[in-house]
């Protein structure tokens, strides 16, 4: 299995989140890694699901519904930590 380039993956996911935020009129300049995404108002349960599906495709993994909670998906940092455990 090839080694995952986590820096590149983080850039991809950050780009997705920035685009999602932009489409909702909520720009994400300098999104901190530990910043709570929910506080930035870009997720609802449908857009969160879209993001999970995008992450699955980007990483080639299936993310169980039970794993999609704030501890794993509450911030970019949490997402990357979760993916590092999974990949």
């Amino acid at each position, binding site marked *: 299995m090839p080694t995952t380039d986590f820096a590149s993956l983080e850039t991809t996911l950050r780009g997705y989140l920035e685009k999602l935020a932009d489409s909702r009129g909520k720009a994400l300049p300098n999104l901190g890694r530990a910043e709570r995404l*929910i506080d930035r108002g870009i997720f609802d*349960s*449908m857009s969160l699901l879209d993001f999970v599906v995008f992450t699955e495709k980007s990483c080639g993994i299936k993310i169980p519904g039970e794993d999609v909670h704030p501890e794993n998906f509450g911030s970019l940092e949490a997402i990357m930590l979760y993916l590092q455990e999974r990949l």
Partner: protein
Amino acid sequence: MLEWLRQRAAREGGAEALVDGGQRLTFAQLAAAACAVAARVQAAGVAPGDRVGLACENSAAFVAAYLGILDCGAVFVPLDPSAPPAVLQSAIEDTAMRWLIADGPARLGPAAASSDVVRVGLDEILPGNPPSGSLTLASPAARAGQAPAAPEETAPDGLQAIVYTSGTTGRPKGVMLTASALREVAEAGVAMLGLRASDRVGIITPLFHLYALREVDAALRAGACLVLARNLTFPASVLRQVHAERVTYLSGVPAGFALLVERYAEMLARCGDHLRAVALGTAPCPPALAAAIRSLLPKARVILTYGLTEASRVCCRDAEEPDPRPGSIGRPYPGVELRTLDDRGMPLPPNTPGRIALRTAMAAAGYWNRPEATRDLRLAEGWILSPDHGRIDENGYLFLQGRVDEVINSGGEKVSPDEVEAALRGHPQVADCAVLSADDPDGHLGQIVLAIVVPAPGGRLDAEELTRFCAGRLELRKVPRAFRIVESLPRTALGKVDRGRLRAAEA
């Protein structure tokens, strides 16, 4: 509501009344919290009949503030805490709002500029609350340096809440609900569910909607415990809390349950040993979804409900397998009379499709400051006209056939095309537009908001730009999820947009 709370607190004050994440309140503590909010609001100058807005996420503070506002005799105006400033401003002006309460200054919107702002630490209201949280009270009237304008229309006796809903016209309408109507709604909910003090009522939809707020009232009526799920965006987190707190009754929207069934089926099934009833409302529930929920929760009643903001509980029935009346939304609640009317307003015989009208003590008194709309709503002899079309069979079962107006039902959220069109027309490069419903390609929301847009000459528009523009002016649920850019819109001989042709072209 407060009387029910106080009676329960006097009887068994130490029983659990509310769970909000790690916070647990007894009935005595919740009653004290409501009193504490009322004292602060009264000290700020609120008088009976004043409109007081609340823009809060679901929390113990929301419930305490709601009950505190009622305790003052003020009129409760729930607001979407994530609404853009223009939407908040519209409600502030429409209701001549005296005070707006928010769970943080950022949610005050335009009222944040008020010269009269009071911060109340949650630790002052709710026992055991971390001192970091606060409720912030701001007086939009103080911003202008004057008292709020008197409303044009005299409020009905006992007005308790004004709840905004999307109607056929662009501006949301404030539905006026009296204390007696809301008490009836609570009583009907308790009777339909057989709610008892031992129940644990899970709240998994936003409390600024009457759909969730009425469950708070029903729980208070029954003396049951409220479980407010945190992190509503995360279904897995919600289901964990529902399971950990042994919730016995849940109500939600079909779109939300479709997501749970599709992605979180195992977690939902684990709740089957304590959930005894699940209710689905605000939008039609596909039979396959009801069947899927029943198979995951075989011991629970799965209840389909129909109501309006103007009359919260109209019909209901339990989903059955096999379904003896496929397509029916059930029979009227006790005390609700139902009929269908022809174009002249005359009652129709059974099984004849027509406009649905109803008579019930749960009905709204009318629309705030909208006498014409109120006249359209309220018919003679206490009947009110719904926006829905349908038929009633010889056994009294209602079969809905859709709305008579253009209002879009997206995942249970009602969206006025006029309101979205008005927002789009504010874009300098939009020459013309029409907004319709379209089937949700993902199947979750039932309908989505589709905008068909004509750019101004030389203008360049795309979906991203239009989405961004709308998101700054409308609540997220009203922002179109699909756009078509076209050269012109079809029009009728009278020059109106020909929605029929547009719809046919989309189909």
